[in-house]
């Protein structure tokens, strides 16, 4: 029925994403976020999307988490987290609602969505490559424009001004 590998991956992902938001120290939060991303990459491997899993590890953990850690360590002492009155209540509400939604969806539609069958040629990387280049070439160009804009924007924002320091 429920696979042990899936269960452990899901548990790790959910637990560490809660920890990422709730850990008092932001460095712990960033590390927990990294573990959540790793668990998500494991789920992608489980779903036969191995290339996406590698992409997820390289981009999210290799780059984004490192950047977050660096920024947290840089601005670290100035971080405040004042308590919010409705915090506990909304935590409970959000988790309960999502759990209810998830289980209700799982129960009601278990017959509508059967488990996937073995993937034959559909999981081939050649198909992914063909689709990316031939069908989505135009979208790729737009993505590269966004990437270029992001580099220029981030560099301009992070440019140190000698006069203010």
């Amino acid at each position, binding site marked *: 029925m429920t696979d042990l590998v899936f269960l452990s991956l899901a548990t790790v992902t959910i637990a560490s994403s809660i920890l990422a938001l709730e850990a008092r120290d*932001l460095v712990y939060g960033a590390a927990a976020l990294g573990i959540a991303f790793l668990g998500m990459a494991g789920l992608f491997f489980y779903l*036969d999307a191995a290339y996406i899993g590698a*992409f997820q590890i390289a981009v999210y953990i290799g780059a984004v988490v490192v950047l977050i850690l660096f920024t947290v360590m840089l*601005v670290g002492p100035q971080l405040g987290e004042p308590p919010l009155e409705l915090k506990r209540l909304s935590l409970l509400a959000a988790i309960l609602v999502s759990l209810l939604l998830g289980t209700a969806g799982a129960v009601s539609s278990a017959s509508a969505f059967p488990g*996937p069958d073995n*993937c034959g040629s*559909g999981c081939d990387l050649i198909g992914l490559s063909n*689709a990316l280049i031939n069908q989505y070439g135009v979208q790729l160009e737009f993505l590269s424009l966004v990437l270029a804009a992001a580099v220029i924007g*981030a560099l301009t924002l992070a440019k140190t001004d000698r006069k203010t320091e």
Partner: protein
Amino acid sequence: MEPITSFFAVSVILLGIGIYGLTTKRNAIRILFSIELIYNAANLNIIAFARLSSPPLVTGQVLVLFTIALAAMEAAVGLAIVMLVSRLNVDIDLRKLTRLRG
């Protein structure tokens, strides 16, 4: 193999955690965490749906590639803004941050 609904359950729970973070946190970096979690929930959902059809669709994987790329961009620009704000201001509490108002 796991029934595909289990992946939807994980995805929904992650979405709930992300929305919880967005609504209750005041720290800019934590809000960025929440946004990344919501992106991840969406990615898992897309991959699971793409895997569901037989033969599996590659379109879902291509879409997730684009999503991850955009999320990484968003994190880079967002953290550059956090750096800038922490240099201008003492605090990165978003509710006290009024210096960027035009």
